[in-house]
């Protein structure tokens, strides 16, 4: 399996404090990769570096085999067109309706007919089981619904890589399972690579092919979920014990 994302010796600081300290990882194409760790360990920071929202002090990030650190903005945008991002709080544009939110990337990055765009919007909304929300506005949606609409927007362009920041946070168990099933379906049917930052262990168990465990900005463990549960590393043992694993 080829590597779709490679991070090497990534170092980042904030106000003189080291947030990521020599992080290295590689992600197989078509896999679901989970980044685990306690609050404040640098999970979201790592994700934001990979998608170019933050800039590292040093280190290398390769997506589709191309170095993105220091890459020209226009070239990086071409890479981003093949990626989707689900933000923790959804990050929907409040002034636009649900269908307009999902249609944004399709309208901006393709020359498709409006009819085709609307068909794609409907199918993506159907995938997240929110057909009836088509004409609603984000302010009319619950937190879980917002997240599912954000998921529909993130997959609107059929991205090769889908980044998810806490896809299950704040969702009820049924919706969490539905989101997990959707992620599995996207991986299996569309060969999508999914990188998810999470601390919901049930989700990780259901979807992740590989996990990394971050602690104080360093990777303590890389491997499968089962291997992680058997790890002797104290921080990982404590993490799983606290979640009754």
């Amino acid at each position, binding site marked *: 399996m080829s590597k779709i994302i490679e991070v090497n010796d990534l170092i980042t600081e904030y106000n003189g404090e080291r947030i990521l300290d020599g992080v290295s990882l590689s992600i197989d194409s078509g896999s679901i990769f989970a980044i685990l760790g306690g609050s404040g360990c640098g999970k979201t920071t790592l994700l934001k570096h990979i998608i170019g929202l933050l800039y590292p002090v040093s280190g290398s990030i390769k997506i589709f085999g191309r170095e993105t650190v220091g890459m020209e903005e226009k070239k990086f945008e071409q890479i981003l067109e093949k990626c989707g991002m689900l933000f923790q709080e959804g990050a929907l544009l*409040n*002034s636009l309706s649900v269908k307009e939110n999902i249609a944004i990337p*399709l309208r901006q*990055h*393709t*020359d*498709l*007919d409006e*009819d*085709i765009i609307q*068909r*794609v919007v*409907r*199918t*993506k909304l*159907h*995938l997240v089981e929110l*057909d*009836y929300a*088509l*004409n609603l*506005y*984000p*302010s009319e949606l619950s937190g879980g619904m917002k997240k599912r609409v954000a998921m529909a927007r993130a997959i609107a*362009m*059929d991205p090769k890589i889908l980044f998810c920041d806490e896809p299950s946070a704040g969702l009820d168990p049924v919706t969490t399972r539905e989101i997990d099933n959707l992620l599995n*379906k996207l991986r299996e*049917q*569309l060969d999508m690579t999914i990188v998810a930052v999470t601390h919901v262990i049930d989700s990780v168990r259901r979807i992740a092919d590989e996990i990394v465990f971050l602690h104080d900005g360093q990777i303590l463990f890389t491997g499968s979920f089962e291997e992680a549960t058997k790890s002797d590393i104290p921080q990982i043992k404590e993490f799983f014990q606290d979640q009754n694993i």
Partner: protein
Amino acid sequence: MSADNKSTYTLPQSLTKENSQKILEELKSFLHETSAVQINLDFKKLENIDSTGVAVIDKVMDIADEKQLKKDLLNVNKKTQISLDTFSSRQLKPIKEKQKPKLFEFLGGQGFEFLEHLKSFVYLTADIFYWGVGGLFSKKGQRKGEFTNQSNQIGVNAIPIIALISFLVGFILSLQSAQQLRQFGANIFVVDLISISMTREMAPLMTAIVLAGRSGSSIASELATMKISEEVDALKTMALNPIKFVVLPKLYAMTISTPLLTIISDAVGILGGFVVGVLFLKISPTAFIDRMASVMVLKDIITLIVKSFVFAWIITVVGIYFGLEAEGGAESVGKNTTASVVTAIFMVIVADSILGLIFY
């Protein structure tokens, strides 16, 4: 390709968002030109299809249905079939669009909405003044030190900009009128003009407009953000009255700061006129001051004070109202802040006209 009254279109190797539009155009032409009663889409070459590709296939199928053509998909492999099943929009039920109201429905709706707003505004105003008076006698439920903080933000921090604007207004007003007065040898009357117009009209109005843009918008945006992030609800659940906890310090600070800022504005505006009078019209400083003292009456000062209080309350209540009316997300904060500034300035000018008539 056409055979036995069937027409077949062979799809390319890839049907994705990169080439979907081009293939759609080709397929539309194919459907337009064909005289066959059945069309076939051959998938034998197709290796890669995404959701836009599936949408194109759906669209073609719909057009074929409209034309009452028979249709068939040939050589669909398992992977493609999964994509077709996953992304097809043909099995989805149509969603009803929101119906737009007709003219009279729209006008009626707007009318009712306006009455609702008016009712809420009156209730809120009554609430603010009820707690405002009560808050003078009981400090319970109010934030300690917040009045000083708000007075600093609304009053002290606004002094430089209000002083600068007022000086320039006084300067320009005197300069423009000096040109005319000089022709009649009536230079001294520039003192009457500047001292009365600044005191009765320009100082209260300029101060109110600056405060509406500066403090009114700040009050509205702060409260709107608090409302949409559920901070107002949080206060209520802690058995704290949001009016007493958040609004009263702002109301008191505005009530104290606005008259003081208006007096500063008046003084600096007249100073602007003084500079023009002394430098351009050669009026001696003593003559300017003597004339000013003789033309100004107590009623002018009372007008200034009354106007400044009224304007302060208008700006505060309007800011609070639009802040607490915010719903939804960030867009609502922006909209309500803008609405608060526009409404406050409009209401200040209306009140100015009414007070102008009263104190004529």
